[in-house]
C-alpha cells in the first residue's frame, strides 16, 4: 500500500505543508542570489544597498523559519503516522497549519512592504528590515512580530497533534516501546516547546506592546538574551529532523538497516537535555554578561558535540552495513557500492558530508576565546550555510524525492535532473562556504550590503579578496540553480497523473540492535524534561535575574524605526 492510500487525510495535510515550504524555498532562494550578487559587487541592479537588508530579512525568515518549520511539520506528520500506523488527529493538525500559514503570510507581507516603499498600514510604515534576529531597538511593523508569534504558536499545535496520536496509541499498546520515529519526533517537539518559550516571551511580552506604542522602551540586552535562548536550540530543531531521516530512512536507501536503535534514542535525549542551556555562546562578546555564565554555556556547548559525533558513527556504520549487504568489501572501497544514482540517497550523503565540515567550523565558534576572531564575520554565515543550508535543506530536498511520490501516489518525474541536483548544490555550497569562511578570517563582516570601506582595505592571508568574492557569487548562483532544479522536479511530479506502481514505500527495516536492548528509562519523558529544565535554570537563572533586577525594561531604549 502506498502511504497516500493508507492515510489519505494525513497525506493531504503533509502535501499542503510541503507546498508552503517549497514556495518559501523558492522566494528565499531568489532573495539569496540577489544578495550573493549584490554584496560581492558583481551586480547591484536589483535593489539599492538600503533595500538589501529587506531582501536579507526575507531570505532569513523565509528559509530559516517558514521553509524549515513547514517542512518539519510535514515530515514529522508523516513519521508519526507511519510509525504509529494511525492518521493524525485532524482537527488540531489542520488548525495548527492554518495558524502557521496565517502568521507566515503576515510576517512576509510586513517584510515585502519594505521593497514596495513601506506604505502606511495601521498608522505605521509597513516594513520589517530587522533581519532574522530582529534585535531591538531596531523596530519592525507590529504585523511582523504578530506573524512570527503566530507561526510559533501554530507549530506548538502541530506538536500537540503528534502527542495526541502517541497518547491514543499508548492506550492501545501499553506495553510496547515507542516506535523510534515517533520517539524522535516527540523528543524534538519537547525541546522545541522548552526553547520557544524564550522567543515567545520576547515577542509577546516586550516587542508587540512596544511596537504598538503601549510601552516606551525595552531592554536591548534582555530581549537579545531571550532571542538567543531560542536562537541556538532552533538550530537543533532544524537538525534533529535531518537526523531522523539519516537514522531511519538513509540506511534503508543504502540497502541496509539502522545499526543501533538504543544509541539513536540516547542521542535524541542528549539533544533534549543540552540544546537550550547553550544560547550564551552567541553572546560571548556581549558586554553586560559575566564571563562565568559564558563559561557555563561554553562547557554545555562542547558537550553538545557528543550526540552529533555519535550520530556520525551510527549513520556511517549503518550505511556501510547496507553496502556490505550487497557484497561490498574493503576498508574504503565499499563506498563505491552505494546507490549514488538515487537522488534521495546522494542528497542525504552529501548533506552529511558537508555537515561534518560545518561541525568543525562550529567547534571553532564554540571556543570562547577564538570566537573573538570570527564573531559576526562572514565566517558565521559560511558555517550555518553548511549546517542549516546544507545538512537540513539538502536533506529535506533529497528526502522529498523519496517522500513526495508516496504522498501523491505519483512517480518521480525528471529523474535525471533530480540525480544531478544534489551535486549542483554541493559544488555551489563548497565554493560559497569555503570563501565565506576565509573572508571571515580576514575580518570581513557579515550582514552588510557593501563590505568595502573608505578608511581602509581588508588584507587576506590566503588568496585575494576579489577571488573570494567571485567564489561567493558563483557558488550563490549555483545554489539558486540547485533550488530551481529541485522545484522543477517537484512541480513536474506534483502535476503529473497517477499511473504505474511506485518503486518506493514507507516501510522501515528493523535495526540491527532493536529497542529491546535499550533501558525503558529512555522513554521517560517527564524525567528528561525535568532535567532539561533544571539545566536551563542553572545556565539562565542568575543572569536573567540580574538583567531584570533593575526593572524589566531598564536600561531601556526607545524604538528606532528602520
Amino acid at each position, binding site marked *: 500500500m502506498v502511504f497516500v492510500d493508507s492515510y489519505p487525510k494525513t497525506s493531504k495535510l503533509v502535501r499542503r505543508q510541503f507546498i508552503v515550504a517549497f514556495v518559501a524555498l523558492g522566494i528565499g532562494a531568489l532573495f539569496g542570489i540577489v544578495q550573493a550578487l549584490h554584496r560581492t559587487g558583481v551586480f547591484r541592479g536589483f535593489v539599492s544597498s538600503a533595500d538589501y537588508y529587506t531582501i536579507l530579512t526575507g531570505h532569513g525568515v523565509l528559509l530559516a523559519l517558514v521553509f524549515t518549520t513547514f517542512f518539519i511539520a510535514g515530515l514529522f506528520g508523516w513519521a508519526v503516522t507511519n510509525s504509529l500506523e494511525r492518521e493524525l488527529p485532524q482537527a488540531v493538525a489542520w488548525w495548527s497549519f492554518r495558524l502557521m500559514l496565517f502568521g507566515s503570510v503576515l510576517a512576509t507581507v510586513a517584510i515585502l512592504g519594505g521593497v514596495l516603499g513601506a506604505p502606511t498600514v495601521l498608522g505605521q510604515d509597513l516594513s520589517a528590515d530587522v533581519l532574522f534576529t530582529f534585535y531591538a531597538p531596531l523596530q519592525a511593523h507590529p504585523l511582523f512580530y504578530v506573524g512570527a508569534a503566530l507561526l510559533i504558536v501554530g507549530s506548538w499545535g502541530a506538536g500537540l497533534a503528534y502527542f495526541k496520536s502517541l497518547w491514543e496509541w499508548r492506550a492501545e499498546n501499553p506495553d510496547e516501546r515507542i516506535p523510534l520515529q515517533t520517539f524522535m519526533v516527540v523528543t524534538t517537539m519537547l525541546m522545541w516547546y522548552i526553547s520557544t518559550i524564550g522567543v515567545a516571551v520576547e515577542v509577546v511580552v516586550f516587542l508587540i506592546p512596544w511596537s504598538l506604542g503601549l510601552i516606551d522602551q525595552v531592554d*536591548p540586552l534582555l530581549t537579545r538574551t531571550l532571542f538567543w535562548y531560542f536562537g541556538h536550540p532552533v538550530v537543533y530543531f532544524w537538525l534533529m529532523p535531518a537526523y531522523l531521516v539519516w537514522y531511519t530512512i538513509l540506511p534503508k536507501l543504502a540497502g541496509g538497516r539502522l545499526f543501533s536503535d538504543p544509541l539513536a534514542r540516547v542521542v535524541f535525549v542528549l539533544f533534549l537535555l543540552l540544546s537550550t542551556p547553550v544560547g550564551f555562546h552567541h553572546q560571548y562578546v556581549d*558586554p*553586560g554578561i559575566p*564571563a562565568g555564565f559564558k563559561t557555563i554555556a561554553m562547557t554545555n556547548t562542547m558537550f553538545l558535540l557528543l550526540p552529533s559525533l555519535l550520530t556520525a558513527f*551510527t549513520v556511517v556504520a549503518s550505511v556501510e552495513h547496507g553496502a556490505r549487504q550487497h557484497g561490498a568489501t574493503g576498508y574504503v572501497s565499499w563506498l563505491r557500492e552505494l546507490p549514488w544514482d538515487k537522488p534521495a540517497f546522494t542528497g542525504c550523503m552529501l548533506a552529511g558530508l558537508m555537515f561534518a565540515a560545518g561541525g568543525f567550523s562550529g567547534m571553532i565558534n564554540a571556543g570562547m576565546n577564538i570566537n573573538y576572531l570570527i564573531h559576526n564575520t562572514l565566517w558565521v554565515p559560511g558555517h550555518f550555510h553548511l549546517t542549516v543550508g546544507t545538512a537540513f535543506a539538502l536533506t529535506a530536498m533529497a528526502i522529498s524525492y523519496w517522500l513526495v511520490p508516496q504522498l501523491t501516489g505519483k512517480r518521480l518525474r525528471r529523474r535525471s535532473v533530480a540525480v544531478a541536483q544534489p551535486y549542483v548544490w554541493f559544488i555551489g555550497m563548497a565554493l560559497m562556504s569555503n570563501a565565506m569562511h576565509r573572508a571571515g578570517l580576514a575580518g570581513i563582516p557579515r550582514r552588510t550590503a557593501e563590505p568595502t570601506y573608505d*578608511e581602509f582595505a581588508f588584507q587576506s592571508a590566503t588568496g585575494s579578496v576579489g577571488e573570494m568574492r567571485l567564489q561567493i557569487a558563483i557558488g550563490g548562483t549555483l545554489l539558486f540553480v540547485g533550488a530551481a532544479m529541485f522545484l522543477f522536479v517537484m512541480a513536474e511530479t506534483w502535476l503529473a497523473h497517477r499511473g504505474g506502481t511506485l518503486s518506493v514505500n514507507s516501510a522501515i527495516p528493523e535495526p540491527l540492535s532493536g529497542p529491546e*536492548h535499550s533501558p525503558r528509562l529512555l522513554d521517560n519523558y517527564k524525567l528528561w524534561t525535568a532535567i532539561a529544565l533544571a539545566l536551563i535554570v542553572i545556565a539562565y537563572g542568575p543572569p536573567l535575574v540580574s538583567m531584570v533586577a533593575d526593572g524589566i525594561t531598564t536600561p531601556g531604549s526607545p524604538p528606532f524605526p528602520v
Partner: protein
Amino acid sequence: MQVHSFEKVWLGAALLLIVGFIATVTYGTAGAGVKMVDDSGGEIDPEAVKSGDTGTGFDDPGVVRQNDSHYVVYVVAQQFQFVPGSGDNPIRIPADTRVTFRVTSADVMHGFSITETNINTMVIPGQVADITAKFDEPGTYGLVCHEYCGAGHHAMGGSVEVVPKSEYEYNGTEVQN
C-alpha cells in the same frame, strides 16, 4: 543496554576531544590571559549618551591618558559612525602601551571590531563594553561595525592609527585620575 565495542571506542574518543577543547579554552583564559568581554563596563542610559549628558567620558568621546602606560579610549557608536574612529577622525593611540577601549551606543545595536586583532565586541544600548589591549605593531588598522544597524550600516567603518610610542603626542584632555 547494548553498546557495541566500536561504539565504546568512538564514545571515549569523542569525550576526550570535548574535554580537550574545554581544556584549551580554559588554558586561554588562565594561561594565555585571554579575557572575555563581561559586565565590568557597567550600565548607562542610552538616551543620555545621545544627548551627551552622562557625566562620563562618553560626553566628549576620545583618548584619555590615565598615566604613561595606560590610555582609555571612549567611543560612541551611532547610526552610522564611530566617534572617534570614522572618516577623518581616526582613533590615534600609542604602540606598546595598555589601551582600554570603552564603547557604548547612542541608539541601536552595533559591532566594534578592529581588523587583524582579536578586539571584537557587540555594542549594546545601555551597556558599556570594556576591552583592554596592547598593540605591538604601529600602523593603520580597520574598524568595522559588524552588526546590522540600519539602512546605512555598510557605510559604518573607521580606522585606528597606532603610532610608535616615541612619536605619540597626547593632545586630549588632561589626566583624569
